[in-house]
């Protein structure tokens, strides 16, 4: 009741979705879109679980002197975004809610994203050392590809030819092989779940 039935549900719905794929009729299409809506709806209605987890942790931290301010900032940020959007119109451009989105959320997100420019350099510095054959291959390929930006006259033109070959031959081939492996691995995992062989994700008492 508490574990076996859910595992059975996983198997039945999984199998049903597998069969659905091969049936092109309208009701089969309906089942597909409807099932996707199930996933979406469960996800939305479960949102309070996440909010509760976040709020609880931060309300607890309000008692910790060093953390008090930061947790208050977090809770305040959350509350203000919710309170400024109690009407649907608040999601239109120009509202206070959207200004907070545009001037707080967007710049911070863009800046965190841009940290990658620094990290890609530090990762290259640390990782691209010719410690082993594998590391050397990794380093040399990255080096050649990055060097396409360095103006070196005729060497650049040869390098561009090498780069194009790398991208079209070994790069593409390895991508395909990795993808085939992923296809098999993911299918195996999904089948194990549907068959109930893999059930570690499902708790029991």
């Amino acid at each position, binding site marked *: 009741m508490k574990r076996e039935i859910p595992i059975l549900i996983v198997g039945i719905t999984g199998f049903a979705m*597998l069969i659905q794929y091969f049936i092109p009729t309208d009701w089969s299409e309906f089942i597909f879109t409807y099932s996707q809506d*199930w996933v979406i709806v469960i996800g939305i209605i479960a949102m309070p679980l996440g*909010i509760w987890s976040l709020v609880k942790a931060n309300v607890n931290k309000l008692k910790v002197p060093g953390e008090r301010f930061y947790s208050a900032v977090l809770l305040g940020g959350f509350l203000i975004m919710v309170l400024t959007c109690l009407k649907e119109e608040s999601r239109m451009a120009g509202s206070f809610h959207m200004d907070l989105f545009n001037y707080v959320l967007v710049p911070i997100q863009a*800046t*965190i994203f841009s940290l*990658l420019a620094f990290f890609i350099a530090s990762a290259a510095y640390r990782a691209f050392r010719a410690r082993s054959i594998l590391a050397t291959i990794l380093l040399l390929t990255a080096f050649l590809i990055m060097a396409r*930006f360095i103006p070196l006259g005729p060497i650049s033109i040869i390098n561009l030819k090498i780069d194009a070959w790398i991208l079209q031959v070994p790069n593409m*081939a390895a991508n*395909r092989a990795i993808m085939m492996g992923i296809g098999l691995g993911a299918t195996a995992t999904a089948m194990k779940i549907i068959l109930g062989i893999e059930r570690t994700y499902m708790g029991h008492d």
Partner: protein
Amino acid sequence: MTPQEWGLYEYIFNGVAALLTLCIFSFLYKDNPFYKFAERLVAGVATGYFTMLLFWTNFMDKVYDPLKAGQWWYIFPAVLGVMMWTRFSKKWAWVSRYSIAFYIGIGSGVSITVYLYTYLFKQLQATIGFPITMDIAGLNQFLVIIAVLSALVYFFFSTPHKGALGFVSKIGIYVIMICFGAGFGLTVMGRVALLVNRVIFLKGYLIQLFGG
């Protein structure tokens, strides 16, 4: 926006954006209160924004509107969603496993064919789609096939990678490393462009404040 168009409101909000940008960059030096402030602020703001986004889009579209329009069958996923709330109680938390079961069952069932198609069949099709001709293109196609096969050998789990198989699998991992090196090298440009955008934003604000 040209300088003349800015009022106090724009100055303040753009100033906030500029300050928060600097707070995040300060992380590069070391973890500090400014970064921690921006980190917590954005965590709260993002959760609040996302919650309301979900509410006004997905919840209205997939729960409220269908039910109001008499599409009673949308009550089922809604009930399953509400069943997730049993997790607040220790005693009843197991009920949420029913919702999770549907969620994961649907995900796995759909994945099997999607993964087989995009990751396996499409790649197979692409690999054997061209003849090996007696020219450069043909030679490249031949090398692609050799490289695909050896990289696949690398992913064999149930045979020891020794002897001939070990040799081929070694070629395979070399090819995979070339692929990773290329992937790394190709990405640098885009990441630098992201940073350039942030620097240009900051520069623009400074010009706005102090004039060109």
